Structures are given as C-alpha cells and as structure tokens.
C-alpha cells in the first residue's frame, strides 16, 4: 500500500492508483472532463489539475499515479485559478449557444463553467474565426465540430470499445479536429451509428439526430394513426432521465405516459422479439438440418444473430465474407414495422397509408436501420421515426406529465403481449437465452434443463461468454440432433465481437450460434440510453431486466399468445413464404474505411 495525504487527510491506497481515485476514496471531488470510467486515461483536458508538494507544475490527477509520502492539495488558490483558466480556455473554443443547444443542462462543460468560470471570460472567443463543419449526414447523430473541445472521449470509445476508429484526431494545434477518414461525411465511412460516442460526449458536439418534432406533428395530425413500440431496454433505463436511480423499472408508467402523450396504440417491441425468436430459432434448426441431414455445403456456421443494427453494419464493413452466416431475420423493431402497416392495420381496419409507426429505442443505430432501403416490406417505410430513450424522456417532460405519480398501465392488445424471453433481449446474452429456451423445447419437447429457465452461463458483463448445451431426448423429427452438443458464444461491445470474428476468420471457431450486440452490456448500454453510463449503471439495468423476466407469467417466446395468433391468422408458420417476405432481409458488403 502507498501512503499519501490529500488535503491533509492521510490515505493508503494500492500502488498504481491515480491521485484522482485516491481522492475519490476520501470523498474529495476533483472535477474531470476528458476522463471516463469506461475509457483509458487521456489526461488532455487538464481540468483535474491539483497541487503536488515539490512538483514544479500542477499535475493532472487522472494521469498521476500515487507515490509514497506524496502531499496533494486539491483546493488551493493556484488550483482554483488554474481550473478557472482551463475551463475558460476550453470555452473560448466552444460555441456556447447554450440556451439553444440540445444538451442544455445536460452538458458537462456547462456544469464546469457554472462551477468555475461564470461571469466574463478573459480570453478571446476563437469560435467566430473558425469555419466549422456540422455533419448531419448520418440519420442517427449530428457531429457539430464547433462544440467540440477535443477531449477525445469519442475517439477512445470508437477505438477501445468498438474497434472501429471511424473517427480519429486530425491536423494539429489550432486546427486539430476529430475527423473521419479524410473528412468524409459520417454517413459514408465505416461508422456503425452505434452512438457510443454520443453517449460519452461531454458537450453538444455529438448528439442523436432528434425526430421529436416530427413525432409531435404526427400525433397532432388528426388524419394520422400513430403507433408506438417500446424496446425491452427502454423500460429499465428511462427512469434515469426522470429522476429515478439506475435499475428502476418504469414499464407501466411509461406505457401510461405514451398514451397521455397521444399515441393511438401503445404496443411492445417485446412482441416482435418473441416473434424474432420463433423465426430465428426455426432458421437455426433448419440450417442445422440442412447441414447435418441434407449435407448442404452452402450452409454456413456459426450462425450470427442479426438484432443489433450496429453489429450488422460492423460485419458489412469489416467481415463481409461472413454475411451468409448472419441470420436473415430482421431485428424486432423492423419485424414490428413490417407487421404494423400490414397485419395490424388490417386487423384494426386502418388505411396503412395513414399509419405512422414510431419506435422508442435504446439505440441510435435503429434510426439508421429504419432508413435502410430494404426496410419497406409493407409497401411503405416500415418504421417512420425512431426516438431514443433520451428523446422519450424529453417528450414526457414537454407533455407536462408528472411521471412519478402516473398510474401503471398495460400495453394495447394484438401486438402488445410479450414474455420474459423477449424482455431479456435488452441484456447481453438475452437473445441467446431466449432462443435456447424455445429451440430446446422444439427439439426435445421439454424445457431447457436450467433451474427456473435461467440459463446463467450466458448472462453477465464478461466480454465474451460461451456455453454448451447437450441435446438429449429428441422428438422423432429431430432425432439427427440426439446427443449433439450445441456450442454457443456471446459478445457485446464490438471490440469483443471482433475477437470472435477473428477466430471465425482463422477457421478456429468451435461455435454453432453466436449472439453479438454492438453495445457494451447489450441494448441496456445502447447509444440512445440515458447519460451517463458506466459498468455499474449497466449492471443495475441488467438486474432490472432479469427481475422483469422473473416477474412475467410467460417466459418462453413460443408461449406468447399474440405471436401464436399471428401465425394462425396471418403468417402460417415460422419461416413461411409470407414470413420471409415480411420478416427477413439481406445484407450489403461495404468498404472497410
């Protein structure tokens, strides 16, 4: 242990601890900006400077490891003046149109300015002299360089967590900027639209592209019938933007709020998550049958899940030779969209041309997914607008709702029923668990052999997880699988996905089925979720997801009564011709830059 004093308080911490962490253990708050719990130390913003006795200059506490006998002061006049100047210098290069900014009151730089640099700034405003680009090319987010303070959280996110590096630091000095490859528009580079950078940007430089106004317009248009669906991960995180602690489930209040906002039907993406399991589970079993019984060499293994649009774009850019391994199933959002303007409109006797389909997602990539030209199976744009969890929180506030005191309400019927298997889609490993619960039962007629249906090996925040399920006691149709060991793997965060993909490329992958989610923790850690995010917050959301599952009466996708009715009345059976037309898709090879 290393002994040091901070503000005259003695503390002993393990070697390698930073001064910032040591101060935290004493409940001494040092302001930070470029620092983020998910990312490596950068030490470039200097906001966290402190005075170290004997040192020539102030030191950045985030980047300074403790040493024996160190004496640190975090609150001297020198530190205070330096912090003020540092924040003022950052502000001199930041377009401070705070009252009009989407991040107003949620901006970390604004909060620091409020603490240290209110009043007149002694430095010249350099923003006027620069010509900045505002890149609105992506349907998912806006990159506004005039708000960027070059803390490089986005660059570290894209490289360390996502293994993409669609953005990097370009040029130098006053011209330094965060740039895509040769300043190309973000819509035309390797960016997956995952929004992890958006979730970590401390200012308004990276924000989701918002469609709140368009949704309000649709709601107020008497000629439109506005349907909304909510993704599983939204209900366990929305509360964070409305004053709740991470991990509070607000499902019932959220449904009530959506109804009061004025949506005509409040439905659940969980319904189409169950449907995805029926389609994807059947697809997996059919692929196994074709490969093992029919000896069809064109069938590729491992099969990959296809629910995460960030992951889809990643594989399209980086591993296009494995596109045949991807499940052809659309994501739950798009399955829902294809049915909303066909099956649902038919059932409710509404003209599909008048239906406006909105989805509330934990995700920014879903905005991109909805814009893909393939996603028009209904003859219309299947999903008209995608809002993030954060945007929904804004709408709830705009509507003047007292969220905390709202009664709980239930989803509307026809496409509103769901099971616990669908809810867990929101956590890494959830799709795999849901698929196993159903596929095992299809093949053996028995429930999956795990205590209370909880397939614990596929759960948790480890980057790559794996499990083996031995298939025994098959029914007659599936005798060829008797005794087989189904090997599965799960990765979340694209840096982990890349590990599994490198194995696949080397031909060393032992798995049959791989679940990949682009974001750390799965959808609960999505780029559209409330800010901030950290491992602890993600764990709380995951715990909430599993308790939501445990509280459901139905916990297997094939038991969902709305899904059963859909097949009976409309689709026939899983992977039927009609199901293929509406619920399956294809992929596109893209450039690796």
């Amino acid at each position, binding site marked *: 242990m290393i002994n040091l004093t901070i503000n005259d308080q003695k503390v002993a911490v393990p070697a390698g601890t930073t001064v910032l962490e040591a101060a935290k253990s004493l409940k001494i708050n040092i302001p930070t900006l470029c620092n983020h719990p998910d990312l490596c130390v950068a030490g470039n913003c200097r906001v966290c400077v402190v005075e170290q006795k004997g040192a020539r200059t102030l030191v950045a506490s985030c980047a300074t490891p403790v040493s024996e006998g160190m004496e640190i002061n975090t609150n001297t006049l020198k530190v205070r003046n330096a912090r003020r100047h540092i924040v003022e210098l950052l502000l001199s290069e930041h377009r401070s149109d705070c009252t009009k900014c989407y991040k107003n009151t949620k901006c970390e730089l604004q909060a620091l300015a409020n603490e240290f640099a209110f009043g007149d700034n002694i430095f010249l405003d350099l923003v006027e002299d620069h010509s900045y680009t505002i890149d609105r090319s992506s349907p998912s987010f806006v990159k506004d360089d005039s708000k960027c303070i070059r803390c490089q959280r986005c660059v570290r996110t894209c490289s360390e967590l996502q293994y993409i590096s669609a953005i*990097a630091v370009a040029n130098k000095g006053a011209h330094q900027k965060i740039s895509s*490859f040769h300043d190309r528009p973000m819509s035309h580079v390797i960016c997956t639209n995952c929004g992890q950078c958006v979730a970590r940007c401390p200012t308004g430089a990276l924000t989701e592209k918002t469609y709140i106004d368009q949704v309000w317009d649709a709601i107020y248009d008497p000629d439109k019938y506005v349907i909304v669906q909510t993704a599983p991960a939204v209900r366990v995180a929305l509360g964070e933007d409305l004053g709740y602690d991470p991990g509070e489930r607000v499902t019932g209040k959220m449904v009530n709020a959506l109804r009061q906002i004025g949506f005509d039907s409040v439905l659940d993406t969980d319904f189409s998550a169950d449907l995805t399991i029926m389609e994807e589970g059947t697809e997996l079993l059919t692929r196994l049958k074709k490969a093992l019984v029919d000896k069809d060499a064109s069938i590729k293994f491992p099969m990959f899940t296809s629910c995460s649009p960030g992951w889809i774009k990643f594989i399209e850019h980086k591993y296009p030779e494995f596109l045949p391994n991807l499940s052809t199933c659309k994501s739950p959002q798009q399955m829902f969209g294809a049915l909303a303007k066909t099956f649902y409109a038919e059932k409710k006797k509404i003209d599909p041309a008048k239906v406006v389909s909105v989805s509330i997602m934990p995700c920014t990539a879903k905005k991109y997914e909805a814009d893909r030209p393939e996603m028009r199976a209904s003859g219309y744009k299947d999903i008209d607008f995608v809002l993030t969890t954060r945007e929904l929180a804004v709408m709830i506030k705009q509507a003047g709702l007292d969220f905390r005191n709202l009664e709980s309400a239930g989803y509307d019927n026809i496409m509103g029923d769901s099971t616990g298997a669908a809810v867990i889609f929101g956590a890494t490993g959830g799709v795999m668990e849901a698929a196993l619960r159903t596929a095992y039962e299809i093949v053996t007629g028995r429930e999956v052999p795990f205590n209370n249906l909880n397939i614990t090996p596929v759960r948790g925040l480890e980057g790559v997880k794996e499990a083996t399920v031995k298939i025994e006691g098959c029914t007659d149709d599936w005798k060829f699988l008797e005794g087989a060991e189904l090997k599965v793997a799960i990765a979340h965060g694209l840096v982990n996905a890349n590990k599994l993909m490198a194995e696949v490329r080397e031909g060393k992958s032992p798995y049959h089925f791989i679940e990949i989610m682009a974001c750390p923790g799965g959808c609960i850690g999505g780029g559209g979720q409330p800010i901030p995010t950290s491992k602890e917050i993600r764990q709380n959301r995951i715990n909430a997801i599993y308790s939501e599952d445990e509280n459901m009466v139905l916990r297997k996708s094939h038991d969902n009564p709305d899904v059963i009715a859909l097949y009976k009345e409309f689709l026939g059976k899983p992977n039927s011709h009609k199901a293929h037309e509406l619920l399956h898709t294809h992929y596109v090879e893209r450039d690796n*830059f």
Partner: protein
Amino acid sequence: MYEVEDLVKDLSTKYGTGRSSLMPILQGIVEKHNYLSDEVMVEVAKTLDISAAEVYGTASFYTFLDTQVRGKYVIRVCKTITCSMKGKGEIMQVIEDMLKIRPGETTPDRMFSLLETNCIGWCHKAPAILINEIPYTELTPEKVVEILKSYMKTK
C-alpha cells in the same frame, strides 16, 4: 497510374507491418509520389490493420505528409519572419506569375504545387524556398525565374 498495392507492399516488407511502421511507410510514399491519395491511405490501413481514419489522422498532423493532390515539384516558400523581411513577398509574386497559381494550388499539368512553409532553417541565407527536398537560398526574382525555367525544361 502507379500500382498502389505494390508500393505499399514493398514499403511494408522493408519497414514491417507494426504500428510504428506507419511513419516510414507514409514518408516512403510521399518521397515517390509527393502526396498521399485516399487510395494509398486505405491500402496502408489495410496492410497495417489499423483504421483509415487513423492513417489520415497521422498524415494530416505532418505538414510534409500531404493528403491533397500535389504536383511533381512541390515548391515551399518560407513564410517566417527573416525570409519575409528579406523579400519573400517578391519571390512569391514571381512564382505566382510564372506558374499562374496561388499558394495552395497545383498547376493543371500537375508539374508544380505552390505552398508556404514555416522556418526551414535557412534564415542566414534568406529568402529561401524548398523544391521537393532541395533548398534554394539567397534568392532574387531573377534567380527564381532561372530555377523554375530549369525545372520546366526537365519535364
């Protein structure tokens, strides 16, 4: 057109494919072709298994690793204070008039690019310019005309 793949392959054989090979490879390309095209940066990224944005980030940091189209001869006129005081303005004017381009531009025949540069260490013999790697010093308008004429002849 040059063979991008072969060039990058040769350079990576010489310098290796680690992250630290990026600089010498980029320098090797610029030595041969005066600038880094998008095509060549993508090829370097692929060879070193890093992202193209990172290659661009590195290239754009260094003034001598150009990412814009450059002519066969890149003329860099020193813009720092000594050269300015010793007649840099006149030198620049003569070059602009002869080549019919302004600083930052390249002649349509891709023979010459005209740029300004920070101090190149020839203050004692100002004003100075660089043409590719070669410095020309103690310049007068007449000398510059002669120098440019000799380059025009060699094309």
